[in-house]
């Protein structure tokens, strides 16, 4: 909208404000179509199917690749839901930063804690 131009306040230096500018308005047009959501959901479903498939070891033995593959698939699903369904792709980076801060901090402190019990002795 016209009254939102950042140039009116050059001293205002926050990057998030500037970055955000052209994305946040009118969720209707900035966001993808329903069809895009359905496509994402199909991908998610397919990955889930693959994940469950690993459980039936008699069919395919994944060997040492099992855990890394499971984690990779999990991360992809996590990423897809966060970026598409939760709109992080389209929304202000500030939102993502708030969430990522918690996520990274949690991963950091808890991984250290768990490894302290196992390896740091």
């Amino acid at each position, binding site marked *: 909208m016209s009254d939102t131009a950042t140039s009116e306040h050059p001293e205002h*230096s926050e990057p998030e404000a500037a970055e955000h500018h052209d994305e946040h308005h009118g969720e209707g047009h900035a966001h993808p179509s329903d069809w895009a959501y359905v496509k994402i959901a199909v991908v998610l479903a397919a990955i889930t199917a693959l994940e469950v498939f690993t459980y039936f070891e008699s069919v395919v033995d994944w060997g040492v690749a099992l855990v890394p593959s499971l984690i990779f698939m999990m991360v992809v699903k996590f990423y897809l839901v966060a970026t598409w369904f939760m709109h992080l792709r389209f929304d202000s980076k500030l939102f993502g930063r708030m969430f990522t801060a918690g996520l990274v901090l949690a991963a950091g402190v808890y991984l250290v804690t768990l490894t302290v019990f196992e390896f740091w002795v």
Partner: protein
Amino acid sequence: MAITEKTPLELGPGDSVRYAERPLGVFTRPQGGRGWRDWLSTVDHKRIGILYGASALFFFLVGGVEALLIRLQLAAPEGSVLSADVYNQVYTMHGVTMVFLFIMPLAAAFANYFIPLQIGARDVAFPRLNALSFWIWLSGAIFLNTSWIVGGGGADCGWFCYSTNSGVAFSPSHGVDFYAIGLQILGIASLVSSVNLIVTCLNMRAPGMTLMRMPVLTWMLLITQFLLLFALPVITVALFLLMFDRLFDAQFFNPDAGADPLLWQHLFWIFGHPEVYIIILPAFGVVSEVIPTFSRKPLFGYEFMVFSGIAIGFMGWGVWAHHMFVSGMGPISVAAFSLSTMFIAVPTGVKVLNWLATMWGGKLKFTVAMKFAVATVAMFTIGGLSGVTHSVAPADTQQTDTYYIVAHFHYVIFGGGVLGLFAGIYFWWPKIFGHFLNERIGNWHFWTILVGFNLTFGPMHILGLQGMSRRIDTYARGYGFEFWNMAATIGTLIIAAGVLLFIWNVAKSKRDAPHLPPPGPDPWDGRTLEWSIPSPVPAHNFDTVPQVHGRDEWWHTKYAENDEGKVVRVATVEEAAQTGEATGVHLPSPSFWPLAVAVGLPLIGYGLIFNLWLALIGALLTIASLYSWALEPVDDPDAAHDQHEDHSDDEAEATDPVAADDSTESDQP
């Protein structure tokens, strides 16, 4: 999007400050403005700040009495003032009270009162949630202390409440149950408040108030809110595990079933160490406002102060296990956490030197606030350095769990935190209440506190190095502990006298106020926006929202530097300050529902401990209150501007799930 000229804080048409007055059916919102009842329904961040401050000071007295009991018991060997049982409860509740019911809410008082003022906002982002935070905090505080009456005594496991000593077999009274549930209630309050204040800081700054122009107090409080935001869920997890163990026979801390007691320690200290910075950073913020004002200089190295604050907040997450050097967690962990702990001293040291550099070449005027601020720097330095001495993990094996540690953290928390907040109290009292605190009594207050503090906690360094263990209710003759314990007890009595002087100061200052000239908007020749508006602050804060052009905006309104670099006055306070006579500012309407929600939570707590039916009643009350809150018209649509009628109605209806979400679900499903 950027700030527009049409800010939300601009004045609308109208004739005076007014509140919603037209009742709206069954969900009539309370009317603002008059009498004590309005304090129960207030959503004004300033009143909530005052409520926090007053309650915190009340609990300071409670915790102080507990401290006196501890010191009386330990004054001489084989003390018989308290039994071992009562002593354990008293020292536990002293720690819990001072941390959760005194310093944190006192810092919250500053955060509530001054974040909006310093960033040029009319209120916080979510005023009703702000009220909710306070009432939940108060209900949690009361809940925790009712343990003395209905729980068979206070918690007796230490504020750290290590497993397995916190189990039912080893602590059979209900004290620990009250601890586990009470701290969760307090945690909800702090969590809600931290979300609220983070959004306020990020989203409600006046035009031109960029992050790097925010006053340092606001910065430190913002960092504190982030620490709370991320630290509270961790203690919540720990407290849930403890509660499930105690009340529902879970096996989290039962070593016989293979559980590991160190799990509690990790969870507790992942919360507990950031908690230290939650306590100290607000005081750093206060000191960073007071010292420049009374040095007639800007804060030296603003960017470094801000970034060192951020660095402290960040590094504070990587040092928790230095509380566990002797727990047997393994030499690699010990070495790693020892190293990480040392380097947190770097940003802290930078802060201290920047304060000194601010005083360098300045004109130091030692008001009581300035005395407290400088004392904060000095005492915190001692606490910080003694911290460095036991960051060396092998050395810590001699020092941990002795009085050396007690001395260390009291120098940090009392010498740093409490003295710093006292500086803030003297500094901002005229802004909040419209009259000064008496400087002469203030001086007495300062010196008694300082002397008493050092006499109490200084000797504890020696006692600790002489081998006196912490948390012992008595000690035998012949270990050389007698002299310094007596000295510490005398010191405590001097502190108590200082606290009484402070109370007397508050009472006398108020009584004398009518006969003295009012302080005016800017009694100290201040630097930040809160000094540009009348004292006490009018309900709407700012008549017109300031346009901010740089740091210390208000100071630059009054002064400029001429071509020779000399400071010249360009405007008097009378010319530049706002009059507080704004018209037509629309304020959020008060509400009783936050109070009602808060009343439900302790009922759930009592219910979990004594009878689940009571918990059901509490839960129903909470849920009903939340729905009533959501259905309550957000405001009287006719007040001040009616073009939003449709909007507010819809908002109210649609809002309820979100309200339910943020206030209950976070920690307490």
